[in-house]
């Protein structure tokens, strides 16, 4: 469950953003569509608590994220939000499974190797677990980053342009996976994109 109220953010006096309120309940999905420069990534970073809004607030799981220290915010983000970036990035020195366990470690949770293997089987990259992430194809990397976002059973899954670099077939697979996995752990799924292919996939939509 994630909601926002009156979020405002400005990079400079000229570059100001005012965002519409959004709300996405557990097991629900929300598509935020917008062209470049409309502040899609800014909104996502605000929702992901990576940026502090100028005004307004974000509420995750019924808890308002305001007046908290950087450390507290970091921990809340680690435990309750799974983020999937436009291009999958990893700690390149670590293997696929270690990259997944890393999100447990950084969220100060027990490292759940069984879960990592289970997710790898679900998402179809079980045979790559001990490889370096750079040895995987882009589609595989995107699936690993989805699995990584699921490792901590987050309340909210935020995806930033998860499909823009993928072909139609992989695009469909990734969206299906995202929907299925977020539903299976009862999380809210918020996808930010300019990818018009996704319009038909989501009933709840916000246009920036």
């Amino acid at each position, binding site marked *: 469950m994630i909601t926002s109220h009156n979020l405002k953010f400005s990079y400079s006096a000229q570059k100001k953003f005012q965002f519409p309120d959004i709300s996405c309940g557990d097991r629900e999905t929300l598509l935020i569509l917008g062209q470049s420069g409309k502040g899609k990534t800014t909104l996502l970073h605000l929702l992901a608590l990576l940026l502090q809004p100028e005004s307004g607030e974000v509420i995750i799981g019924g808890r308002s994220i305001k007046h908290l220290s950087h450390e507290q915010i970091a921990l809340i983000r*680690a*435990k309750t939000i799974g983020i999937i970036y436009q291009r999958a990035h990893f700690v390149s020195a670590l293997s696929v499974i270690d990259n997944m366990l*890393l999100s447990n470690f950084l969220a100060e949770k027990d490292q759940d190797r069984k879960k990592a293997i289970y997710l790898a089987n679900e998402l179809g990259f079980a045979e790559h677990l001990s490889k370096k992430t750079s040895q995987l194809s882009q589609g595989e990397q995107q699936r690993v980053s989805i699995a990584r976002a699921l490792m901590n059973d987050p309340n909210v899954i935020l995806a930033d342009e998860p499909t823009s670099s993928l072909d139609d077939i992989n695009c469909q697979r990734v969206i299906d996976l995202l929907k299925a996995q977020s539903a299976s752990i009862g999380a809210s799924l918020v996808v930010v994109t300019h990818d018009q292919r996704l319009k038909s996939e989501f009933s709840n939509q916000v246009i920036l």
Partner: protein
Amino acid sequence: MNLFKISLANIREKKLNSFLSALLLALGIGMISLLLLLNQQLDEQFRKNIKGIDMVVGAKGSPLQLILSSIYQIDAPTGNVPLAEVNSLRKNPFVKTVIPLSMGDSYQGFRILGTTPKYIEHYKVKVAEGHIHNASMEVTVGSKVARNAGLKIGDTFASSHGLDGEGDQHDHKKYKVTGIFAASGTVVDQLIITRLSSIWDIHEHAEAGAEKHEEHHEEAGGEAEEEGQDVTSALIQFRNPMGLMTIPRQVNTNTSMQAALPSIEINRLFSLLGVGIETLRAIALVIITIAGVSVFVSLYNSLKERKYEMALMLSMGATRTSLFLMLLIEGLFLSVVGFFAGILLSRFGLLLFSKAAEQDFHYSLGKFAILPEEIYLLFAALTVGAIAAALPSIGIYKLNISRTLAEE
């Protein structure tokens, strides 16, 4: 998964960079450690053998050469002096002991030293096997001689003229081994010790008739001494420091001998060596500094490459402090590896050096224990690693997560 594992993975990820950093550090540490080892052991060897010897008298020439040949047995002797002149020093009230030395022959490169029992008393060496020689042409051999030349009690051998083992053999008369000294870590270990008279006896045939055989007379030590004979040099002990003030001058002006003071000559030798040691030490410090810079550059570059990774880890809940620790572990790990590789390197160097010294001078420098100074060296290495890691870490604290993630 823990910070240490991530750090190790990062080090493995850039093997060559890490190797270069550790190698440079190992070279620097190794050089300094080798210098420390050599310095300490040469110093120890030199001081141990010098102990209690206040002055050496011998033929005129280089005083350093006289000291090196008479005390350390590593240089050629300066020449001969009459025993009578040496013995006249005994009359001086400041002189406590006079130990005449006669050398010039060797066996398999080990020097044969003719001397009085005082010499053995002075170095406080004990006999491990057999008994101390008590007649002419009997010898007691040092532990290293017995081991390396394979001499046992009752063996006989012919000495060769000269100190390099390549001179003519004195085949007509053979020495007999009656005893073997226990290892003492002093110069005695590498000597074959006999009576003064043995040396004269063996060279007698060459000078037959030239020298008149004089009456034997028993000395307090029970050693027969022959007046009119020559010796190579003599080690002198004074009764009190007053001797030091007057006797060297007397010897140098009133006799055909020269007096050399071991402490002064050895200090001179060390100050000559010191220039070289200082240079090497400076080079080693430069190498260590370069190693530090190399670790720094390596971490700094990887930090630039890993900027997105850092931002990613921060977005996943890592604190800036834990990322700083991660870099610190990388730097410290390289330092520790470099340090221990350097210590091993220096021991290896010492082994080679010791082999060479053993071959040329029969001195062994075989002490491989960690020196207290090397603990400081470890701290120095850790400091270099920590600073090299800390400087690029400032970047972590300045990193803007949102912008970094958005830009790539």
